[in-house]
């Protein structure tokens, strides 16, 4: 599965050749986020059985897998929400142990959670600034509500997200609008690493195109590294440089997008599914 130097690049200049052998000549600092042997269980459920994963600088890494494979759990470990049971996390080559989401944020890691993490009773602006409120008088924490409203409005306009009313409660928004706000909240922070857990799930065509463009822009023009979870292979192939398949808490496949195709990935997933089905039947028959 590891990529060999393709004949095409070999024919080109030696400079390019050096940069097209990622695994072999990768400098430590080119990996911005790395998980080594990460495991996690919830009571009797083993969610992650030993994840080894690398995210490189400026790279968009797609993460696919069945429901319950452990994708969200991995994201929640990488962003400091859950501590891993065992295993290590490295940021820019240095081992870290996040004690909280705020800790991870300090390293420039921002997250869009699968459940969006919006508070229905708070307004669009309040949700955009949740736990990063702009305040006066330091410790007292007097809210600069007007300033947050203005900034929220401006940012949403800048990224062309259309929310009719910045003071509307999140409850009154459509699924796609909520998703756009959750994404906007993460992208507003000048993150170095973005973790996006199914950011397009409830979106219509126009909204997803908008988010895809926003994410592309952050990746190409601002060099943000990111992990994107999605079930839509077309979206992923458009966005990603590399795809990891996660199965039953392990990385089952690690493939550069340029070396594979939607068909090939689909074939892999289906054959894995058949294999599991057969294994399950064998178990039943015994």
């Amino acid at each position, binding site marked *: 599965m590891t990529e060999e130097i393709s004949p095409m690049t070999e024919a080109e200049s030696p400079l390019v050749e050096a940069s097209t052998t990622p695994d072999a000549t990768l400098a430590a600092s080119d990996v911005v986020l790395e998980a080594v042997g990460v495991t996690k269980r919830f009571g009797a459920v083993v969610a992650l059985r030993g994840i080894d994963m690398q995210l490189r600088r400026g790279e968009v890494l797609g993460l696919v897998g069945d429901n319950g494979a452990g994708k969200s759990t991995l994201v929640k470990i990488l962003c400091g929400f859950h501590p891993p049971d065992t295993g290590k996390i490295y940021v820019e080559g240095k081992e870290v142990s996040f004690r909280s989401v705020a800790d991870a944020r300090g390293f420039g890691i921002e997250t869009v*959670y699968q459940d969006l993490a919006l508070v229905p009773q708070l307004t669009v602006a309040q949700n955009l600034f949740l*736990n990063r409120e702009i305040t006066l008088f330091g410790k007292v924490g007097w809210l600069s509500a007007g300033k947050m409203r203005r900034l929220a409005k401006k940012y949403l306009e800048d990224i062309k997200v259309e929310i009719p009313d910045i003071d509307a409660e999140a409850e009154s928004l459509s699924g796609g609008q909520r998703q756009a706000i959750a994404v906007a909240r993460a992208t507003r922070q000048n993150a170095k690493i973005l973790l996006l857990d199914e950011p397009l799930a409830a979106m219509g065509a126009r909204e997803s195109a908008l988010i895809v463009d926003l994410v592309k822009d952050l990746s190409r023009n601002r060099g943000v590294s990111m992990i994107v979870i999605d079930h839509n292979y077309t979206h992923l192939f458009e966005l990603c440089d590399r795809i990891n398949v996660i199965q039953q808490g392990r990385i089952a496949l690690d493939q550069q997008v340029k070396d594979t195709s939607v068909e090939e990935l689909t074939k892999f997933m289906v054959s894995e599914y058949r294999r599991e089905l057969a294994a399950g039947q064998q178990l039943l028959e015994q």
Partner: protein
Amino acid sequence: MARATASDNETPQNPVPKGPGSVAYRLVQRAMQQRELTVVLVTLFVIIYFGIANSAFFTTANIITVCQYLASIAVIAFGEVLILSLGEIDLSAGAVYLSSPWFMYLFWTHGMPIGWAIVAAMVCSAGVGMINGLITVWLNVSSLIVTLAVNYVLFGFVLIESNDIQVDMPGQTGHFSIIFGVGAWSTTLWAAAMMLAIWALLKRTRFGLHVTATGGNLLAAAESGIRVRRVKVWCFIIISAASGLIGILDAIRIGSINPGSSGLDTVLPGIVAAVVGGTALTGGRGTIVGAALGAIFLGVLEDGFNLIGVNANWFYLAEGVMILVAMVANTQLGTVARRFRR
């Protein structure tokens, strides 16, 4: 039919009398959007009713009586707004209200100056709140049960310490007493000050926003990095400290403390005031202004029934029915209001 044509071909030059855009419509819309609308209406109704029914209602003496009665309900209600906004409940606030003067009395009889005795009693009250909060968040026990148990513990403590004997409160004379309870408007002004403080805390500070977030969507609050447990513990501390303070002030005002009073009878009107005022029991929505109005509603009811001489046997029945009416009006108006809110 008329509706269909109105929406089919837009005719802005032809203003429909009650259509969106007219000033009257917008005023109604604004009013309907206020969660406190129902309680404003029912409170106005009972005030007008009792004002007409009995000429003694609008006298200064009676207004002072009403305010003194409702100050404690209001303060407990303000605390409960914080707690209910979190999606929790505190049934011990009444017992804290009743026990804090006993704490103060104990410190005082052991030789502490009265000012320090008040401070020490408030620290004890805050400590009770901290215990409520810590057990709730760390041992994951429902706050309903934790605070109910603490309510009985405090009740038992008072009975044991007092030997079930009523005592006189210290601090009955001088400027001190005027400020701390004895002055006619003292407890009312304290309650008003606490209203302002808790309103500002809930609606204008980061902490208050985090209270709403924690109660509105616990997981989302935690995922955004809010320390939800800490937020909860602080709210339990605040309601207990506030209830303890107003308890001491009321005890100084009345002049004596009676060990037999029931904490639940004291806290439940506070919860009713908060909920009638528009605070949701399910978390995420709290209104301090509503709670103040709810307390006024309950205070006026109690006082008004006394004034017009409702038979004591009828009193609770009438009060219960009025609370039901207020709550039903709340939910009914709520459905109408949602249409305005879009």
